[in-house]
C-alpha cells in the first residue's frame, strides 16, 4: 500500500498535463495555421491579403507555379481568351482521371474487351456515367482545342515571339486527334472496328512506305511489312491491333502529349505570358525590316 501515494501524485500530474495539452490543442484548432503541421505543408503565411503574400501563394504552389504572380488587367477577361486553352487542359485532366478508372475494368483482349464494356455499363456502379464522361470529354476536348486555335489566329498570337509555341500547339492538336482515334477501337464494337479499318486502310496507300502507295511495291512493300502492318501489328485489325491501340492510347501518347504540354505551358510564360490584350500598334509605327 506504500506505492499508492506516489501513484496518486503521478495521476494528478498526468491529469494536469492532459488538461494543458488539451488547452493547447484547442488553441491550435482556433488558429490551425500556426501549427507545425500546417506550416510544414504551406510555407507562406496568409495572414494579410497583401500583394506579396498573394504572389507567394501562387509562386510557392507546385500546381499554380506555371502562373505568373500578376497578369495584364485585361487578360482575365473572358472575351479575350475565351478560356479555351485552359478548358482543353482541364478536359485532359478529366480524361486522365476517368481513363485510369476505366482501366480498372478493361482488358485489351479480343475475348474480354467487348464484354468488359457491357459489364461496365450494366454492373459497375456509375460505370455508364464513367464511360459517357470519358467519351464526351474527349469530343469536347477536340472542340475546345479547335476554338483555342481559332482564337490564337484571330488575335495574331502565333506571331513573333510565339512562333515555336504555335508549332508545339499544332503537334498537340495532332496528338489529341490520335488519342481520340486510338480510343475509338477499344470497345471492340462494330463502330470502332470499321472506323479503324477505314482509317488504317489509308496507311496502306502511304507513298514509299505503303504496300499500295505510290512507289511502295517498287521498294518491296507488301501487306506484311508496310507501315499499316506496323500500326496494326498484323495485316488485319485483330488482337494485336487492339493491344497496340490500348498501349498507344493509355501510355505512349499521353506521355508524349504530357511532355509537349509541359513545353507548351512553359513557353507561354517564357515568351512573355499570354499575348494580350495588347495595346494596338499603328501602321505608321512599323519598324523597317532588319536584313541580316
Amino acid at each position, binding site marked *: 500500500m506504500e506505492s499508492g501515494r506516489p501513484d496518486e501524485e503521478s495521476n494528478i500530474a498526468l491529469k494536469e498535463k492532459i488538461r494543458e495539452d488539451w488547452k493547447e490543442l484547442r488553441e491550435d484548432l482556433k488558429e490551425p495555421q500556426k501549427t507545425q503541421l500546417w506550416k510544414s505543408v504551406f510555407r507562406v503565411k496568409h495572414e494579410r491579403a497583401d500583394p506579396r503574400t*498573394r*504572389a507567394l501563394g*501562387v509562386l510557392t504552389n507546385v500546381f*499554380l507555379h506555371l*502562373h*505568373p504572380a*500578376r*497578369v*495584364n*488587367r*485585361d487578360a*482575365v477577361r473572358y472575351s479575350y481568351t475565351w*478560356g479555351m486553352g485552359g478548358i482543353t487542359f*482541364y478536359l485532359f485532366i478529366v480524361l486522365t482521371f476517368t481513363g485510369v478508372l476505366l482501366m480498372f475494368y478493361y482488358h485489351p483482349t479480343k475475348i474480354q474487351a467487348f464484354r468488359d464494356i*457491357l459489364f461496365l455499363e450494366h454492373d459497375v456502379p456509375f460505370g*455508364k456515367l464513367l464511360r*459517357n*464522361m470519358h467519351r464526351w470529354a474527349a*469530343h*469536347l476536348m*477536340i*472542340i475546345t482545342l479547335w*476554338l483555342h486555335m*481559332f482564337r490564337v*489566329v*484571330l*488575335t*495574331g498570337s*502565333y*506571331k513573333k515571339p510565339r*512562333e515555336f509555341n*504555335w508549332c508545339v500547339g*499544332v503537334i498537340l492538336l495532332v496528338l489529341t*486527334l490520335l488519342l481520340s482515334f486510338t480510343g475509338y477501337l477499344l470497345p*471492340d*464494337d*462494330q463502330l470502332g*472496328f*470499321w*472506323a479503324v*479499318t477505314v*482509317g488504317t486502310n*489509308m*496507311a496502306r*496507300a502511304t*507513298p514509299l512506305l*505503303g504496300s*499500295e*502507295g*505510290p512507289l511502295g511495291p*517498287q521498294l518491296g512493300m507488301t501487306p506484311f511489312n508496310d507501315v499499316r502492318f506496323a500500326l496494326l501489328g498484323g495485316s*488485319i485489325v485483330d488482337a494485336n491491333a487492339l493491344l497496340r491501340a490500348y498501349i498507344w492510347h493509355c501510355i505512349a501518347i499521353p506521355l508524349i502529349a504530357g511532355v509537349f504540354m509541359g513545353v507548351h505551358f512553359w513557353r507561354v510564360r517564357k515568351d512573355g505570358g499570354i*499575348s494580350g*490584350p495588347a*495595346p*494596338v*500598334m*499603328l*501602321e505608321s509605327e512599323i*519598324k523597317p525590316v532588319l536584313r541580316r
Partner: protein
Amino acid sequence: MDWAQLWSIVSLPDNIPIVALAVLVPFYTWYGLRQAQATDRLITQLESNPSLAQTHHRKIYPFQPGWARELQVWPYLLRVEFLAAIIVTLVLMIWSITLNAPLEEPANPNHTMNPSKAPWYFVGLQEMLVYFDPWFAGVVLPTLIVVGLMVFPYIDTNPLGVGYYTIKQRLIPLLGFGVGFLLWILLIFIGTFVRGPGWMWFWPGQTWDHTRVMYEVNHNLSDLLRITNPWLGAIAGVAAIGLFYTVTGWGIHKLVTRTRFDRKIYGRTNLLQYLTFQFFAITILVGLPAKMLLRLLFNIKYVLITPWFNI
C-alpha cells in the same frame, strides 16, 4: 422531306459535337469579330489623331490613369479558372447523364457497316477520299495541312495585330485561315449529313436507300480531251496542273498586293516565305475545293494519270 431520316442522323449521340460545332463556331466568330470591329474603330480614330495616339491606352477596354495595369493572379485569375472548371464539369456531367456513349454489336470483320464512317473529326479526311486517291487524301494532304499550319507564323510577316482582335490590319491571314477552317468544317458536314450508304450523295432529309444504284460515269481529263496516248495524256495533265498553279498563283498574288498596306507587308516577305505561302494557299485553299467542284459538277476523276500515281 424525310424528317425521321434527318433526325436519326442529327440526334446520333456521336454527332452531337458536330451540332455543337454548328452553334459554337458561328457564336465565337461573331464574338471575336465584334471585338475586331471595335479595335478597328479605335485604330482609325488613333490614326487620324496622332496626339490622341500619344496619350490613349490603346485598348478597347476601359482604363483610367489611376488603375493598376496588372492584377494579382490570386484571386483574380484563379477564381475565373476555378469557375470555368466547375462549369465545364457541370456541362459534362449533364451531357453524360442524358446521353449515352454509343456501343454497337461486337466487332465483326464479316459484316461490313454501310455506311462505315470515321469518327466525326476525321470524317473530313474520309470525304476527301472521294476527290483524291488514298495516298493523297489520307496521307499527303493531312501532312500538308499539319505542315501548312506549322509554317503559318513564319510566312505571316505582318508585324501588326499581335495580341488584339483586328480585321483591318490582318485581312489576308484571317481570310486564309478562315477559308481553311470553313473548308474543314464543310467537309465534316458533307461527310456526316450528306453521305449515306455506299458513300453516295443523299441531300439532308432524303431517305437513305440501301438499294440505290448510281449510274455515274467518271471521266479523266485526258478522256475529255480525247487523248488516247498515255504519254500525251500525262503531258496534258502536267500542263493542266501547271496552268492551274500559274493562274491561281497570279490571282492570289493580285489579292495579296491589292492595297497599299498589303503591298507594304508583301515588301517585307522574302522569296522563300512567299513561295511557301503560295504553295500551301494554291494546293490546300484553292486546289482542294477546285478538285471537289470538278468531281461533283463535272464527274472528272483524274487530272493527271501516270503508271505510279494519279491525281
